[in-house]
C-alpha cells in the first residue's frame, strides 16, 4: 500500500506561520469537560531519573578530547581606566594555551551601549579585563595572577540616588539616566487624587537581588574545521546561536548551540554573556575545545541581577473602596550597562491590575557603577507588586475593608491600556475564589498573640504582562516505522519540565501513550527557531504548535487506517496507540500496524504557532496568601504557610506546575526576608559575591506551599488553553508576607528584605512611640 502524505501542510509550512491556520482553527475542542488521557496528568519528568542519578549531561559536564579550562580576570575597581595590560608572563606559564585581552583588538561590541568587548573604560567591579585557557582551572587561576594590569581609578558612584546628583561622576556620557523617563497617563490622575476620600502614599525600596542559579553561566566551545559547536547553559539556544553568529561574523550554518539540561537561569541566561564568547575566542586561538564556567564570584558580579528600585506610590479611593487614582514614579538601578532581554516593567502592574480611570506612571533607569541588571523572573512585576500590594493593604486597613474584598471591589476584566477584554476575564476572580477556598481567607482567625509571638495573615494579587506566548514555533513530528514518534522542536528545557509537558501534548494530540513519544529539543541544528524561554513563554508558544503537528499526524494515521480497514476515517479514533472505531466495530489495529503497512515509507507532520488574537489581551493572573509568625522580642520571622492560586490557563501537568509554584514562592520568600546584594558605597565593592553572605532561603525557611489549582482553560489564548506559569508564583509572595507581618504586628515595612536589623529597629520604634 502507498499513501500520499497531505502536501498542504508540509510544503507550505516552512517558516510560514499562517499555513497551519486552517488546521488550528478546528482545534477548539479542548474545552472544560474534554476527556484527556495524558494532558493534565501529573506525569513525572522524562529526564527525572537521569537527573537524580547524576547521569544527565549539563553544560558543565561536557568533556571533549583535549579540552581546556577558561577563567576570567575582572576589574577590582568600580570605575577605572585601563592604562595597560601585559599578559606575557601568563602566556609563558606552562599549561596556558591562550590569553585574550584588549591587546587582541577584537572588533566586537557589547551591551546596548556598544562598548568594546575588552574596553579600556571599566565601569563596575567584575568588568571583564582578560580571559585565559589552560590545561586546568588551577593553572588558569595561576595565569590570571600573572597578568599585569595598570588601572587608573576614576570617580565612581554605586548608589542610585547619588547617581542622579548634579555632581555625580558620569558613567557614560550624560547624566546617568539610561533614557528619557517613560511616562504613561490615562484619565486625569491629579483630579482623581483630588476627588478621593482617602489617599495612601509611601516610598518603597526594593533591593538588588541575584538569580543564584545552581549552575553558573558558562559554555564549552569547540571548533571543528570552520564550524563552531557551543554547549551552553542558556534559556535560548537560538538566541545564543544568533548572537554568536553576529558577534563572530559567522554564517548561521556554521554555528551550532546545544543544551540538553540546565541548572537554572531565572532570566539571567536569556542573552549572550561575555564568557561564552570568550570560550569561542579562546578555543579558536588555542585550537582546542575550551570550557569556561564562571565561579560564584563572577556569577554574582557580572551576569545580571534584579535591579533595585525606588517607587513612590500614591493611591486615592472613595470611602466605598473604589480606586479614584493610582500614581507611581520609579527609578530603576540599571547598573553600568543596559543588557538585552525582557525589560523590567515596573509600571505595568499599576496600569493593569485594578479598575481605575486615572492612572499615571513614570519610570526611568539609572546607571550606577555596579554589575548590569538583567531580567529576573517577572522583571519589574516582582518589585512593583510589593509596592502596589502593600499600598492596597494599607488602603484596606484604613478603610476597614477586608483586603480580598477591596480587590474584588476594584476588579477589572479588561485591559485598560489597550481597551479590550482580557482573554480570560474571570481569571483573577477565579484565583480569588480558589485562594479563599484553599487558604480559608474568609474564615481566617483574627491576628493572634502568644507570648512574644504574633501571628497574622496577608495576601496579594497580580497579573503578568507576559505568559501569552508568541510565534514563531515550528514543530516537526516523525512517526517511526514502529509507531513511535519523535517530536522535534527548537526550544529548550531550562529545568521547568518543557520536555515532559510538550511530550504530553504530542501524545494526547496523536493518540499515543507517553512511552511512544520522544521529545527533542535544545539543539539549533535540529529544531526550528523557537523563542527564548523567558516571560513564561515556552508552553504557550510551543504547545499549540506541538498540538497542531500532532493533530495533523493523527489525521494522516487515521486516513491510512481507514484505507486499511476499508472504512471512513471519520469513524475512527486513536486511543493509546490503538485504532478504535467510534461505531463499535472492532477490528484490532494499532498505530504500529499502520506504520508496518506503510513501511518503508513513514508519516510526518508539521505544526506551527499562529499569531495571537488582536481583539483580546492574553494575561495570566494570580493571588497568594501567607500566614506568618513574628517574634516581637527577637525579630524572628517565620512563614507558617503559603497558598498560591495562579491562573495559567489549563494545567497541562499538575506535578510540574506544582514545582513552579514551590520554586517561585521560595524565591519570593528569599526576596522578602533574606536576599540582598550588598555594596559598600564608599569604596564601591560588592561585599557578598558568594553564597555565604548572599543568603538564599534554606529548606528550613520554607513552609508548606500549597498550589491551589485554578485550571481555567483559556481557549482565547491558544488551542491548548494553556498560558505561562513560570514567573507567576514569585510575583505576589513578598507583598503577601509583608502584609501578614503588618497584620501580626502593625508594622508596615517599605524596604526589602525584612531582616532582623530592620524588624528590630521597627519594633523598637513602635515600642518607643507606645511608651
Amino acid at each position, binding site marked *: 500500500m502507498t499513501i500520499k502524505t497531505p502536501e498542504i501542510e508540509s510544503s507550505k509550512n516552512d517558516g510560514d506561520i499562517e499555513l497551519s491556520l486552517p488546521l488550528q482553527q478546528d482545534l477548539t475542542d479542548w474545552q472544560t469537560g474534554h476527556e484527556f488521557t495524558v494532558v493534565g496528568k501529573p506525569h513525572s519528568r522524562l529526564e527525572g531519573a537521569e537527573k537524580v542519578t547524576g547521569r544527565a549531561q549539563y553544560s558543565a559536564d561536557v568533556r571533549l578530547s583535549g579540552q581546556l579550562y577558561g577563567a576570567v580576570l575582572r576589574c*577590582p575597581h568600580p570605575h577605572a581606566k585601563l592604562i595597560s595590560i601585559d599578559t606575557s608572563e601568563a602566556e609563558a606559564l606552562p599549561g596556558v594555551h591562550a590569553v585574550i585581552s584588549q591587546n587582541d583588538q577584537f572588533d566586537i561590541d557589547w551591551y546596548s551601549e556598544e562598548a568594546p568587548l575588552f574596553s579600556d573604560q571599566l565601569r563596575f*567591579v567584575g568588568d571583564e579585563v582578560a580571559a585565559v585557557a589552560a590545561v586546568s582551572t*588551577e593553572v588558569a*587561576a*595561576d595565569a590570571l595572577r600573572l597578568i599585569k594590569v595598570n588601572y587608573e581609578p576614576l570617580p565612581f558612584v554605586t548608589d542610585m540616588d547619588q547617581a542622579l546628583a548634579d555632581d555625580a561622576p558620569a558613567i557614560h556620557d550624560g547624566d546617568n539616566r539610561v533614557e528619557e523617563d517613560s511616562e504613561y497617563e490615562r484619565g486625569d490622575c491629579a483630579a482623581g487624587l483630588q476627588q478621593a476620600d482617602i489617599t495612601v502614599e509611601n516610598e518603597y525600596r526594593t533591593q538588588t537581588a541575584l538569580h543564584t542559579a545552581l549552575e553558573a553561566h558558562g559554555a564549552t566551545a569547540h571548533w571543528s574545521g570552520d564550524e563552531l559547536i557551543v554547549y551552553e547553559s542558556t534559556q535560548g539556544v537560538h538566541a545564543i546561536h544568533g548572537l554568536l553568529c553576529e558577534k563572530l561574523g559567522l554564517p548561521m550554518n556554521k554555528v551550532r548551540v546545544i543544551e540538553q539540561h540546565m541548572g537554572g537561569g531565572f532570566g539571567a541566561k536569556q542573552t549572550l554573556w561575555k564568557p561564552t564568547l570568550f570560550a569561542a575566542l579562546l578555543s579558536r586561538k588555542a585550537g582546542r575545545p575550551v570550557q569556561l564556567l564562571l565561579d560564584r564570584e563572577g556569577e554574582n558580579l557580572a551576569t545580571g541581577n534584579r535591579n533595585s528600585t525606588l517607587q513612590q506610590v500614591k493611591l486615592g479611593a472613595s470611602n466605598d473602596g473604589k480606586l479614584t487614582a493610582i500614581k507611581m514614579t520609579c527609578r530603576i538601578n540599571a547598573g553600568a550597562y543596559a543588557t538585552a532581554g525582557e525589560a523590567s516593567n515596573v509600571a505595568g502592574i499599576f496600569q493593569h491590575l485594578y479598575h481605575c480611570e486615572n492612572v499615571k506612571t513614570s519610570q526611568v533607569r539609572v546607571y550606577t557603577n555596579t554589575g548590569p541588571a538583567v531580567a529576573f523572573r517577572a522583571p519589574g512585576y516582582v518589585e512593583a507588586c510589593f509596592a502596589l500590594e502593600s499600598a492596597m493593604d494599607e488602603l484596606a486597613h484604613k478603610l476597614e475593608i477586608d483586603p480580598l474584598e477591596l480587590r474584588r471591589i476594584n476588579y477589572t476584566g479588561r485591559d485598560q491600556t489597550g481597551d479590550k477584554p482580557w482573554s480570560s476575564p474571570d481569571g483573577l476572580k477565579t484565583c480569588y475564589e480558589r485562594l479563599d477556598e484553599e487558604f480559608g481567607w474568609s474564615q481566617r482567625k483574627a491576628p493572634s498573640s502568644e507570648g512574644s509571638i504574633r501571628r497574622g495573615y496577608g495576601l496579594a494579587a497580580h497579573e503578568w504582562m507576559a505568559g501569552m506566548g508568541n510565534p514563531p514555533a515550528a514543530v516537526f513530528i516523525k512517526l517511526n516505522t514502529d509507531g513511535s514518534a519523535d517530536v522535534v522542536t527548537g526550544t529548550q528545557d531550562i529545568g521547568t519540565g518543557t520536555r515532559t509537558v510538550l511530550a504530553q501534548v504530542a501524545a494526547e494530540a496523536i493518540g499515543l501513550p507517553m512511552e511512544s513519544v520522544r521529545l527533542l529539543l535544545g539543539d539549533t541544528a535540529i529544531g526550528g527557531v523557537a523563542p527564548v524561554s523567558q516571560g513564561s513563554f515556552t508552553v504557550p508558544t510551543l504547545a499549540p504548535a506541538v498540538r497542531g503537528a500532532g493533530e495533523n499526524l493523527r489525521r494522516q494515521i487515521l486516513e491510512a487506517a481507514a484505507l486499511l480497514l476499508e472504512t471512513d476515517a471519520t469513524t475512527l479514533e486513536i486511543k493509546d496507540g490503538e485504532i478504535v472505531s467510534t461505531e463499535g466495530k472492532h477490528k484490532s489495529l494499532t498505530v504500529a500496524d499502520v506504520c508496518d503497512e506503510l513501511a518503508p515509507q513513514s508519516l510526518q507532520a508539521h505544526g506551527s504557532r499562529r499569531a495571537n488574537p488582536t481583539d483580546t489581551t492574553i494575561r495570566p493572573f494570580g493571588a497568594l496568601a501567607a500566614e506568618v509568625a513574628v517574634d516581637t*522580642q*527577637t*525579630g*524572628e520571622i*517565620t512563614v507558617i504557610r503559603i497558598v498560591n492560586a495562579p491562573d495559567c490557563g489549563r494545567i497541562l501537568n499538575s506535578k510540574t506546575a506544582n514545582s513552579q509554584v514551590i520554586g517561585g514562592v521560595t524565591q519570593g520568600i528569599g526576596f522578602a526576608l*533574606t536576599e540582598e546584594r*550588598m*555594596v*559598600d558605597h*564608599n*569604596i564601591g*565593592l560588592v*561585599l*557578598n559575591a*558568594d553564597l*555565604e*553572605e548572599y*543568603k538564599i*532561603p*534554606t529548606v*528550613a*525557611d520554607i513552609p508548606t506551599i500549597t498550589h491551589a489549582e485554578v485550571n481555567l482553560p483559556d481557549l482565547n489564548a491558544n488551542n491548548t488553553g494553556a498560558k505561562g506559569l513560570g514567573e507567576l508564583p514569585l510575583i505576589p509572595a513578598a507583598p503577601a508576607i509583608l502584609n501578614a507581618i503588618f497584620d501580626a504586628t502593625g508594622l508596615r515595612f517599605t524596604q526589602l528584605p525584612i*531582616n*532582623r*536589623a530592620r524588624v*528590630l*529597629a521597627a*519594633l*523598637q520604634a513602635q515600642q518607643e512611640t507606645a511608651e
Partner: protein
Amino acid sequence: MKAFSYSPAPTAAEASNEKDSRAEFFAGGTDLLTRMKLNIVSPDALIDLKSADLPNGVSEQNGGLTIGALTTLRDIEQSELIAEKFPVLAQAAALAATPQIRNRATVAGNLLQRPRCWYYRNRHVDCWLKGGSDCPAATGQNQQHAIFDQSPCKAVHTSDLAPALVALNARVKVRGADGERELSIEDFFAPPTEDRRRETTLADDDVVLSIELPSDASHSVYLKAMDRKVWAFALVSVAAIKSAEGWAVVLGGVANNPVRLGPLEKALENTDASDHNALDKQHDKAFADAEPLEHNGYKVTLAKRLIRRAIEQLSD
C-alpha cells in the same frame, strides 16, 4: 589558590617544630581552605594535624571533660555526655554551620577560625586586620559588626562554641616550642593588637591539644539569632549557665572576642528573674558601654532580649 606542599604530621610535637610563618596547620580545612581560595592566606605548606597523635573525641576526666582538638562539631552535637552535662555546648555545636561542615569542622579549628567580616573576606580590601591601615567596616556596611569596641577591628568572633566555652570556664591545652601548657580560655582569646593582628594569644607554632571543661553545667542554654533559620553566623548569641556558683552570661557576635557580662552575672544573683523591670535595669547597665556602629544598633536590643530569654528559660 597558590600551589602548596602538604605533609601529614606524625605528632603534635613534630607539627609544632616544623611550623614556620610560611606554613599553616590544617585540621578540617573548612576555614583555612576558604581563606586560601580567596588568597587571603597563601601558605607554602600545610601541616595536617589529623594524622598527629592529638586527642580526639570526648572523655570524662576527674570530674570534668576533655574534648580532643580534632573532635568534630558533629561529635559534640551527638555526644550524650555533652547533651546531658553541658547542654550549652551541645546546642552551640548543633546550631553552627551545616551538617556537612559540622562533620568536618574541628573544635580547635572552630575557636581559631578567622573573622567572616565581608571586608576581610574580600581579597581586594587591605584592611587593618590584614595588616593595612584602616577599617572600612567602621564607616561602611557594618550590620554584622561589633557593638563593643575592643580594637581598631570591628569584626566579631563568629564561633558558636567560643561563648559556650567561655561561659564554661574552659581551659585550653597547648603544645608549643617549650612543651605543653594549659591556659584559661579567657587568656586564649584576646582582641587583636597593633602587633598581633589576630583574635587569640597563641604563638605561631602552638598546637591546640584539647579543651578541658572543669565542671558540669547541666542547667545551661545557648541561643543564637540568625538571618536565616539555619546556616548563618550568629548576629548575636548568648551562652548562659545557672549553677550553685551563680550565673554565667557570655555573648557571641558582638565583639572581637566573646564578651562575658560579669557585672550582670553578679547582679543576677540578687535579682528576681521574673522581675522584668529590675532585669531591664541590669541590662541597661551591662550595655552602657556598648558603642554600636551606624547599622548595627539592633544588636543591642537583640542581645538584651536573648539574654532575657535565656534567663527566663533557666529560671523556670
